[in-house]
């Protein structure tokens, strides 16, 4: 479904990604792990065209999206939940979902906004609240909900558990599992090793802009060297 080949990305002269390869198949959850500065977020930004790669290719559903503009990439069926969540402080919960729904090109058949309220009842209670009045956990739910209403084939999440209480992380984990079970693929960047290994079928470990390890979750858990060297767990 998503295939990233030999991605090289620069910030100015800084050579950040030095040939990253990764792929995600349908209904799979792939996690990208690594320390700060390993190039995890940059990989996501390159896939989404926010920081276009200088060399390499990104292919999504058999279409080369490497040089497309961000909004085209998103419209081809990728939803993005950014690290800062990107909630608009002066816009209500309901309007957030309506705006996201308005952008989706092929309108999904299932009731998207009702569906979001169903899996996040808390958002239904707070539908009139402004983004700025939500707690961190509620903002994260809204960010995920906003990605869901577009009915994506692939959802990309950048550190969804960051700054959340353990109870909320458990809830998030359950929701992400449901989303995966419903057929949406997930590409997850995480610092939270436990959440990542709970969710992911396949794991990539990045360090200094290169893939140091690629394998299914069990083989990462079994591989002490990689865990100690690159993840300190």
């Amino acid at each position: 479904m998503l295939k990233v080949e030999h991605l090289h990305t620069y910030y100015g002269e800084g050579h950040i990604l030095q040939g990253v390869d990764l792929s995600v198949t349908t209904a799979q959850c792939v996690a990208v792990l690594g320390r700060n500065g390993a190039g995890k977020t940059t990989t996501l930004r390159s896939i989404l065209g926010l920081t276009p790669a200088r060399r390499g290719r990104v292919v999504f559903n058999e279409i080369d999206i490497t040089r497309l503009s961000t909004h085209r990439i998103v419209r081809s069926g990728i939803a993005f939940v950014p690290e800062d969540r990107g909630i608009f402080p002066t816009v209500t919960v309901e309007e957030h979902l309506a705006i996201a729904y308005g952008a989706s090109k092929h309108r999904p058949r299932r009731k998207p906004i009702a569906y979001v309220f169903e899996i996040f009842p808390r958002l239904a209670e707070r539908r009139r609240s402004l983004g700025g009045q939500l707690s961190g956990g509620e903002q994260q739910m809204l960010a995920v909900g906003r990605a869901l209403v577009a009915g994506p084939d692939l959802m990309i999440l950048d550190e969804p558990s960051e700054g959340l209480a353990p109870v909320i992380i458990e809830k998030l984990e359950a929701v992400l599992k449901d989303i995966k079970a419903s057929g949406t693929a997930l590409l997850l960047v995480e610092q939270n090793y436990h959440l990542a290994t709970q969710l992911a079928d396949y794991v990539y470990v990045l360090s200094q802009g290169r893939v140091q390890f690629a394998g299914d979750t069990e083989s990462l858990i079994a591989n002490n060297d990689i865990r100690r060297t690159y993840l300190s767990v």
Partner: protein
Amino acid sequence: MSADVALSSEQRIGVLKRLPLPASRRAYAALFALFAVSLCALPSFVSGYVMTLAVEAMIAGVFASGINLLTGYTGLVSLGQAMFLGFGGYGIAIGTALLGWPLWISAPVTLVVVAAIAAPIGAICTRTRGVEFLLITLAFSQMFYGAAIKLRWTNGSDGMTGIPRPDLSLLGVSADNPTVFYYYVLAVAVLSLLMLWRIVTSPFGSVLVGIRENERRMMSMGYSVANYKIGSFALAAVICAVAGILQSQYTYFVNPDAMSWQMSGEGVLMVIIGGANVVLGPFVGATVFVVVKQALSMITEEYNLFFGIFFMLVVALFRGGVLGFISTLIGKRQ
């Protein structure tokens, strides 16, 4: 799961639109009604002088509303909106005086032409943001200002006279009468406001606010941000051109001063004084602007100095402008 969650998506979107107005919006609706009624009744109570001020304030209010769409909603601060004020005035001057078209053709043609000119200008300007956007809009308006001064075709810096007011003989009145002209301006102003209200409460308006709050996020949600910015630039230009048409009809003439950067700057001041990203804000701002300036000019010749002090006081004391301040008060009481 409550029953209403089971609605179909289409129904749900429908419900979204029909939600009762929240308290603050109801307060604005009441304020708007009060405003409109008192403005309708105004001519029976006040002297011609006050009515002149009211006409000036309403025209300035339409102009500032155009700026508000771009600055308050989309978040792009322009210092060149007066060029569209000038385009409006020159448009009907050229249409009626040079081409000999009746006003009812010249005015809509002017607005269409302004939109057609504003779109490519917007396409260039909106590639920048912040200070660069401010400067490039300023540069464009100065370019047209310079052209208007030099062009013999439109009498250079002398400008063009004889701009007609609408022919209202069908209603048995003449727009040359100040009271009749007052109602004409009021009607156009209210229509412009309603149109603007419709725009900013539409999905298009939500996208503009999203761009102001977080442009990259809107891109990551699949919106072609560039096209929306150009659209809001062109719409704002058309609203400013409406003000330009009214202004030139009010004074029966137009000259390059309509396009001066001071005019653009005053428009932005009105938006800030009244309250950005509130539909009525620019009207309140324009009214305060016109009234305070008049009052100060009666007291002292150095009114610009004192107006500057007044502006600083408003910015320091009223967060979100006069209207923003009022709505905070209402919010506190509830």
